[in-house]
């Protein structure tokens, strides 16, 4: 072990925090930890399971079959001119990511309590890594989508180029809820009980089983306040070439998502100073 010859001139000041500091530079300094936290959860995720990563495709696939039978065949909901199964699956991709991302990030701080109380790491990395991890499942589910689309003879068009934008949109939406919920869960352990209800309700106010066009014109503005409306509509358009989403719907959804994520981030920064004392 080498001696330290030159004292680091970097001085850290520890004092009661006043006001708000976003400390974005610190996040960059700890980027390797984010990588290892994601790697940990990805590697651990399907250990000791028989089906392994196939679960990532199986879950939306099962939902797709059920939705196709109930909403496509029995209820005969419209599907924007593509086979209902494809329509449902393309919507379930971002939805499954959203549900898993929100659930996992909300529980991330309490679930990693000793990373909060026994060592200093930027706490926000914990919900952030939980937002990244389900993207791996999403990638697996995408492969299955490719198979389905080939089976139905549907080829993606040039709209596919817009997909990364909507993926980013989905990530921002998950962050908007996940960061705030994870911080709230440190203090209020109601979060794990409220979360399944919330996600179930959101499923029905998001265009997963029906198209956005199904919503009456005069309620469109209200509907687009749900960011997942814009995300799912955008996914379908870029993957299946359904009707282009309205700029107003996607615009409002995007603004809500970005404002939500910023507010969520600021809330996290405001309360994180108490995490170690309250968790």
């Amino acid at each position: 072990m080498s001696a330290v010859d030159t004292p680091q001139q970097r001085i850290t000041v520890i004092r009661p925090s006043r006001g708000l500091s976003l400390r974005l530079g610190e996040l960059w300094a700890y980027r390797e930890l984010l990588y290892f936290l994601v790697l940990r959860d990805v590697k651990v995720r399907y250990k000791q399971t028989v089906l392994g990563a196939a679960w990532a495709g199986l879950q939306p696939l099962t939902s797709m079959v059920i939705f196709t039978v109930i909403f496509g065949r029995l209820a005969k909901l419209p599907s924007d001119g593509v086979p209902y199964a494809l329509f449902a699956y393309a919507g379930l991709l971002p939805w499954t990511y959203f549900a898993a991302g929100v659930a996992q990030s909300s529980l991330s701080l309490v679930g990693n309590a000793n990373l909060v109380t026994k060592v200093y790491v930027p706490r926000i990395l914990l919900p952030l890594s939980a937002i990244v991890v389900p993207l791996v499942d999403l990638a697996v589910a995408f492969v299955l989508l490719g198979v389905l689309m080939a089976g139905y003879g549907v080829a993606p068009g040039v709209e596919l180029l817009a997909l990364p934008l909507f993926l980013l949109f989905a990530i921002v939406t998950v962050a908007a809820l996940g960061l705030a919920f994870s911080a709230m869960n440190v203090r209020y352990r109601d979060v794990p009980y409220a979360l399944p209800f919330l996600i179930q309700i959101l499923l029905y106010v998001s265009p997963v089983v029906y198209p956005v066009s199904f919503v009456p014109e005069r309620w469109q503005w209200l509907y687009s306040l749900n960011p997942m409306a814009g995300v799912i509509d955008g996914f379908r358009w870029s993957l299946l070439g359904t009707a282009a989403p309205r700029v107003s719907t996607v615009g409002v959804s995007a603004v809500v998502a970005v404002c939500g994520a910023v507010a969520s981030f600021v809330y996290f920064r405001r309360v994180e100073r108490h995490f170690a004392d309250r968790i």
Partner: protein
Amino acid sequence: MSVAALTAEGLSKSYRIGGSADRYDTLREALSRGVRRRGRGAPAPADRTVWALRDVSFEIQIGEAVGLIGRNGAGKTTLLRVLSRITEPTAGCAHVAGRVGSLLEVGTGFHPELTGRENVFLNGAILGMRKRDVERNLDPIVEFAGVERFLDTPVKRYSSGMQVRLAFAVAAHLETEILLVDEILAVGDAEFQRRCLGKMEGLADSGRTVILVSHNMANITRLCSRAILLRDGAIVEDGAAGDVVARYLGGEHGTAAFRTWPGDDAPGDEHVRLRSVRVVDETGTAAPVIDVRHSVGIELVFEVIGEPRPFVPWIAIFNDQGAHVFSAMDVDPRWQHTPVRGTYTTTAWVPGNLLNEGIMIVSPSLNTFVPGKAIRHAHVDEAVSFHVVDPGQGDTARGDYAQAWPGPVRPLLQWTTERSGG
């Protein structure tokens, strides 16, 4: 000129117990409290503020090794948590020059499903190490932990000892300028603890600043040149490790080098009463800290009263791990006769270079041995204690070997060697 690695000015930390800061708040409680407060103007439940740290100020120079000592709840761990930025101080500030590594728990973030190698990288990242630093240190880490053959086995298949060794090995290779360590040497088997101690000594010698919390005073005096004694969150004493440890043992360990019973509650019966017990050095003055090379006296003062009976002064010495080091009694023939009334002072001299380093606890008795049994006239469990220290000048039984020396005693023996043949 020495440079400060760490400066604390008036650090204070309070916790609210009860009231609004309860551990498991629920949303409903928060809401209903808000409603109550607004509706009737009823006061919120009274909060009790507990100060875990009070106005703590100190300066630590680069390369210093400082021990933090004090009873449980004195604020040692809270201070480490504040200095490692886990929790914020309520008031005051600290300036830290360089990177801080904190080891408040061994193996934070270890995941049982991951392999040893994966956990090394994950744990390293959690402790703030860069990936390339871990890669560079991977071989020494694995060698130190002794898990070469199991590096690609999930950690859940490891024995608990192997897990701890691997975790400490990662931490020991942290290359931060300042290292905060909380009682982690209390893990692993004796042989591994010795290696940890050696590593810790290496850290201090390599010019890094170390702050160590430990309840093991022998480790504090061995590893640290300076110690800070905390009580109820405030600094009581800050100075040379030997002096501060002596103060702590003298007044805080529950026993001291001197105890006296002037009143009627003195231990004893109708024949004899113990009046005082002292630990004295060679000059006869009470001394809580004894140089391992010097003899130490256990002085008993007792009063023979009533109808005297024959008895023998007797002592038992235990170390801080509870090992019974030895018992001894005075075999002088005078004790076979019935003593006359009066106050007696008798001192048992334990020779130098016999006891090992560390805390020694003395339980004195006044006993009568009759065939088949012993009658205890007076007995006090753990009446006094003292601390045996080795100034490390190479003339004791440990020679120049600086690491932990096992066993309750450490005699300096005479060795003879003869060479034959060849």
